[in-house]
């Protein structure tokens, strides 16, 4: 067997936060045709950092803008305004080849392992595609790299010639992870990576993601609606409501001493598996429905449903600010619920 030349993959060289998101908004125009078009404020003025090597969990209910935010950070959709820095370089101004080069270092894993793999390509080709796109290595080198990545992701490299339909959901998610990993990225955005999988398979993927992080010093932005999983995987957690981040802190802080009433409500909603603890849980039930992001409430966006809202909450929007050591929240009455 001939020795394949090593691939020259780009390595990280940053100091400071790996990702720096400042005042990012993403608005979608709606309803052209009749009358005036309106704007969906999917993400509306969001700022946070992700340090190298950490996992930042992003939670919120459906429609809060968490997936959109993930896509905007990946530059799969352009931001309407604001700045996104990755490895110290501004992404929102980049175009064409420059952006392509940066993309080698950031990858995304999708929720649906059925929809995100081309059924007409072998999994070997699917995993090798990013290498090919960036013109890295020759055929032999790429094959070697694919086999290597498949092995670390728990796939049998002999199956590289098979097609996606021959694999189960869990294995397909491993294929998606292999494809993300093949470029040696520093950042992986994982958008609901386990919510389409069966319970017993979810643990396999969570454990795999943890192992890969340790092995390759990966940084994750882990987007999910399941607060238990997010607590399990994240170093820090950001909570989103209606296009805004309402709270960011270490995982432990958010779950043990939440400051924002919405976080508190979310946490009180989750049943405990332990029947004894569950019997004592008192859920805080929200009234009403989540407002439309087309016409969000004035002031604090949560005020229409917040159990402790005062007049000021509908008048003045609370800034996302440091409330105590490393704990950021956007609320006029933090920790009061």
């Amino acid at each position, binding site marked *: 067997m001939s020795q394949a030349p090593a691939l020259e993959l780009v390595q990280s060289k940053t100091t400071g936060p790996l990702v720096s998101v400042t005042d990012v908004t993403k608005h979608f125009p709606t309803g052209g045709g009749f009358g005036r078009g309106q704007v969906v404020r999917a993400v509306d003025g969001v700022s946070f950092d992700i340090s190298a090597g950490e996992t930042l969990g992003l939670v919120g209910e459906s429609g809060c803008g968490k997936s959109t935010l993930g896509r905007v950070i990946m530059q799969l959709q352009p931001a309407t305004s604001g700045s996104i820095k990755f490895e110290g370089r501004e992404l929102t101004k980049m175009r064409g080849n420059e952006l392509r080069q940066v993309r080698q270092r950031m990858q995304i894993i999708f929720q649906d392992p059925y929809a995100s793999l081309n059924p007409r390509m072998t999994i070997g080709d699917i995993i090798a595609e990013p290498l090919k796109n960036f013109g890295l290595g020759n055929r032999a080198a790429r094959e070697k790299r694919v086999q290597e990545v498949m092995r670390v992701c728990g796939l049998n490299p002999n199956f590289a010639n098979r097609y996606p339909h021959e694999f189960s959901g869990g294995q397909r998610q491993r294929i998606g992870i292999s494809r993300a990993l093949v470029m040696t990225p520093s950042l992986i955005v994982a958008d609901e990576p386990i919510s389409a999988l069966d319970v017993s398979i979810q643990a396999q993927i969570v454990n795999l993601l943890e192992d890969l992080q340790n092995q390759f010093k990966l940084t994750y932005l882990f987007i999910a609606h399941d607060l238990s999983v997010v607590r399990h995987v994240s170093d820090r957690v950001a909570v989103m409501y209606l296009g805004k981040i309402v709270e960011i802190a270490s995982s432990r802080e958010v779950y043990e001493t939440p400051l924002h009433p919405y976080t508190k409500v979310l946490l009180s909603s989750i*049943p405990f598996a332990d029947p004894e603890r569950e019997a004592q849980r008192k*859920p805080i039930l929200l009234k009403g429905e989540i407002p439309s992001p087309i016409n969000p409430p004035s002031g604090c966006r949560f005020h229409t449903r917040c159990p402790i809202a005062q007049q000021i909450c509908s008048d003045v929007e609370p800034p996302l600010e440091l409330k105590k050591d490393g704990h950021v929240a956007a609320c006029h009455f933090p920790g009061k619920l």
Partner: protein
Amino acid sequence: MNAGETLGIVGESGSGKSMTALSILNLVPEPGRITGGQILFKDRDVVSMTSGELLEYRGGDASMIFQDPMTSLNPVLRVGFQIEEAMRAHSRFDKRQAKDRVIPLLERVRIPSPKERARDFPHQFSGGMRQRAMIAMGLANEPALLIADEPTTALDVTVQAQILELLKDLNRELGTAIILISHNVAVISSLCTRVMVMYAGRVVESGPTRQVFDHPEHPYTWSLLRSVPRVDERRHERLISIQGMPPDLARLPSGCTFHPRCQFKVERCMREEPPLAEVAADQEARCWVLMRNVSKETREAVKT
């Protein structure tokens, strides 16, 4: 199952939990059929009911709500009318009564401004409200049993909390027995006093929820409880991952159907299928080994 009881059926997709529920209503989809066994509802055999009896039984004595309320509601009929229709299909209430009951029912499931909302179409409702409307429909004929198949799986956690509280209240106040089907052990723990764990079409463990969740005896139950992260976890513990996949039901493994994935199996498990046997007061498990006989060291070793 007793009157007024709450039973949870937990298992993965394909474990047979929905089919069990559909069998109770004699609703197993073609070409499936009930090939053996007996289902008694208040001493009447459901399997041998005539189609006329079944019509009265389904939706009258026992009703069912599903995961996706949109597929169970007719999109071109007003919500109030559909609830009324559920009563008109049965003989418990006359036309006048059926009409009068619609708004109190919507109120009962806490739909705000029920008078106005009764005139809405399903698409004008949010996901949570649709599920409430489904529950109102399920309760319309005051059934003794309500079967809820993954009723909160498609909903956000805050809405899930509302629906679970609603189901708890209905069970307490109306005495409706509830069978809750879910893959989520915490949801089962929240509502059900008894639990039944299914794997590959069989019950592998059952008993009072507290007993089973505190002292699971079947390795599948034990692993399932440790394979999901807990929202109240303090220390980061590695999740137990159950290796492999659920078996193909057309080609079940020999012996215990869980043995290819079981990390505590003994030789006998591959040859002989264990019976569902009593392992403690009121608790049954289908296992030759039982977790009580597995040493702490062996359990820990599984976590790698």
